[in-house]
């Protein structure tokens, strides 16, 4: 396995609380160790359905915790955004307010 995601036995032991490998990452790194190609070759192993899998219910929860944005990162979602200019104009007329339009390359409520 590559050094970046070494196998369990070969994985460097980080200092506790290190910013490089914090507590709680071990399970993930173990899971990743099955995913990482050595020298560009795709790894092969048998998963529950005969396919490749380095994940299970425990690592699923850890991945979700690490990937899904937290409340502070989603504070902007507290704003009741209308998702199209058309909808914003309709509501603005009904509510007698101006429209504030946030227009981005990529939908601002999606991929930007």
């Amino acid at each position, binding site marked *: 396995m590559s050094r970046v995601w070494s196998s369990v036995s070969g994985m460097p032991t980080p200092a506790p609380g290190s910013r490089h490998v914090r507590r709680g990452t071990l399970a993930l790194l173990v899971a990743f160790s099955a995913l990482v190609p050595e020298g560009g070759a795709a790894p092969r192993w048998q998963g529950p359905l005969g396919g490749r899998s380095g994940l299970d219910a425990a690592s699923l929860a850890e991945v979700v915790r690490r990937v899904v944005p937290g409340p502070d990162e989603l504070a902007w979602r507290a704003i009741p955004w209308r998702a199209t200019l058309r909808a914003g104009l309709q509501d603005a007329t009904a509510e007698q307010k101006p429209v504030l339009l946030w227009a981005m390359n990529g939908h601002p*409520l999606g991929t930007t």
Partner: protein
Amino acid sequence: VIDRRSAWSDPEVQALLASFVPTADEVGRLQRDTDPEARFFQAFAELGHYGGRERPTSTRQGIYVVTPSGKLLGSWNTRQVAEVRRRLRAALEAWAQLPEGERYPAEALARGARFEDHYPADGLVLVVYSRDLPRVDDTRDPADWRTHAWNVDHVWFTAAEAASLVAGELDGDAARRLVRLHTRDNVRGQTTPFPLECVQSARLEARVVAENGATKTLELVGEARVSESGAWRTGGGSDTPEATTRSFDGAFYGRAVWNGTRFTSFELALVGARAGATQYNERADDRGPAPMGVVFQLAPEDDRVAPAMWYEYPRTFRR
């Protein structure tokens, strides 16, 4: 992504927004298309901060305050909180001074076609988050926003596609679409989907692990492998397209509950090694391979934002 966590997260800005109808939309379609909604946008955007601009890009992205009648009250493209507050107040003052008769349209905007109109209410709609995962020997700067970047997208499946997964394996075309559009590394910024011919493996299977009447608890497992060689302006100090390869190689795992009619719970992770850099995804100095995680969850029913790459969806969605 930066906008999301700066100006719009400010409590004072959020309080000011109560006096507006906050609206978000994709600018490319609005500035390019010819339907009534797009024409309406173009009329006021050309009076705004990027009106008439062609270089360095012709984008009209930014913030606009506009009356329902189409009169522009303010426009800007800054995320500085103090400046956003100031401009919001100025726009409200302009609104207050505007005669009532100039605020509203004589008639409602004619309805044009949007992909959002094809929202698959009877299918499966997921919100998708992507982010880098922990690395051993991580040399990234913790103070750099890119180290903590994440992105969001949406996935739509028709009822038939969702049913195929419940039956044991996601329809092949749907699985390839899933992999083409959601293994692309958009953590730090946008990038294009993988071409169909670059998909080496796209499989998502389900097996029943518990059953109670019509309700089935499913375990989801699969794999995703794509690789594309091409030339991109990666931003690595040169504007010349660079021949390079981008790829993703990973595995799915998840859990879902099907109540006999629809999914009531759905959580799926895709974890793997991504590599490469493209024009806008800010990976010129971080090409990997490095671990990336993608999580798919049920979207709230009021979240009807179309998938970013909606134009890659088949005609079966345009019923």
